[in-house]
């Protein structure tokens, strides 16, 4: 990462309290890696508005954007201007009680705006003392299927993809990496990773057969619970509920599922990174402000 952050959105309270952060913006040429790694179908601008967080040129590290905000315990605070990853990678971000500051310079070498933001971050993270994560990272976000697909024609070592793409897909799309990317892109809402399938990215054909368009909406969850009452679809619905929730061992009847959904539907979220499951936000759990749209997901909505 370089020494700057993107400046599109500074609405988050961490830019305003207790110290007012007033960055000096500048335009910088869009890095080539942003264009190369851009998985959307739109074109990125030639220049981007950024602000300098620290004075020396070297930054340090950014986190991938894909899935960073797919659970309400995590939020991107600043997108890092970088020369290695995609646009949207996170320079400063919080997950539960930990706020990662991806820049390198100590306070004396931060800009005035950087120092103020650093102080605000300290005050802000204090609010999350004792807060545990709702999910831990244990799966790669679905957009990585599209990101990694172009590599099948560049990397000869097939073992590199052993936990990414099924062997039959590797064979089918050999020499046609774009075809593989499009395969996932067309059904991005149905992508999941199943440990029984070697952990590779798969399209959920069960959901497709039920004419359900996404595996990560609460509406789908509700529909699956409804189908438990349909003798012809109950077995498949039960299998899908086991795939996408952690409650299958707790409930033995459709009524129990309905009651669970009714009690929690406003607090249910789906996380790829957390393991392609639905989770429930506990009552009273502190949720931070969403500063940035989840970049990758927004591309497909």
């Amino acid at each position, binding site marked *: 990462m370089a020494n700057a952050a993107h400046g599109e959105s500074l609405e988050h309270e961490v830019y305003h*309290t*207790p*110290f*007012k952060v007033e960055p000096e913006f500048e335009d910088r040429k869009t890095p080539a890696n942003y264009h190369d790694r851009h998985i959307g179908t739109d074109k990125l601008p030639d220049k981007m508005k950024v602000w300098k967080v620290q004075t020396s040129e*070297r930054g*340090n*590290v950014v*986190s*991938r954007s894909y*899935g*960073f905000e797919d659970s309400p315990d*995590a939020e991107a605070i600043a997108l890092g201007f970088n020369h290695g990853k995609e646009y949207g990678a*996170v320079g400063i*971000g919080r*997950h*539960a*009680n*930990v*706020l*990662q*500051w*991806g*820049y*390198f310079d*100590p*306070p*004396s*070498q*931060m800009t*005035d705006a950087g*120092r*103020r933001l650093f*102080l605000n*971050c*300290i*005050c802000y*993270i*204090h*609010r*999350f*003392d*004792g*807060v*545990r*994560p709702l999910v*831990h*990272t*244990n799966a790669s976000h679905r957009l990585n299927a599209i990101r990694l697909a172009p590599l099948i024609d560049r990397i000869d070592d097939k073992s590199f993809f052993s936990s990414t793409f099924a062997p039959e897909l590797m064979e089918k799309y050999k020499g046609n990496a774009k075809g593989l990317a499009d395969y996932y892109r067309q059904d991005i809402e149905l992508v999941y990773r199943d440990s029984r399938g070697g952990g590779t990215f798969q399209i959920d054909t069960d959901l497709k057969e039920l004419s359900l368009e996404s595996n990560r909406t609460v509406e789908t969850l509700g529909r699956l619970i409804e189908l438990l009452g349909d003798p012809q679809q109950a077995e498949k619905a039960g299998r899908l509920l086991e795939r996408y929730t952690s409650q299958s061992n707790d409930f033995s009847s459709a009524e129990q599922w309905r009651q669970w959904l009714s009690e929690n539907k406003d607090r249910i979220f789906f996380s790829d*990174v957390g393991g392609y499951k639905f989770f429930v936000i506990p009552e009273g759990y502190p949720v931070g402000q969403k500063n940035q749209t989840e970049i990758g997901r927004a591309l497909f909505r």
Partner: protein
Amino acid sequence: MLTTRKPLAFIAPIVLLLALMLVNCIGCKEKGQNQDTQEQAAVERTEPAVPEVQDEPIDPNGKIKLRILCTTSPNEGRTADFTSFLSRHFIKVETTDYESFREDLAKDFDVVIIDYGATRPGTPVPQLSLSYCRATITFGVAGSMVCRRLDLKPGYL
């Protein structure tokens, strides 16, 4: 009489307005000069100016009522840079060794700052468990290795 008082009544507010504008202008200039001087001094001391604190509990000295524990870097100057800056803003700032940092060492503090000053991955990582829940800022690449140990999203990839 009316003819002599009317122009005065008209001119008086204008004079007052001009006087106010002059005072404000001088005030701005003095404020700007003061900021310039402060910034110059900050650069010379390599220390930042202290901005005014808003909406956060402070002590009579204007320091934020948070106790900060900061891990040490092999570069002593870097550690001193952090503690010097943080001590100007927070009521208590102490340091502890990075590699041997454990959660129980943070029990008397409000926020932990984990910094090692590393520029590349591969640095040692403190032995923290997944149940670690103290409010923490992790810094740079070493910080992202800590996040990785904790299975958190900013973890190094």
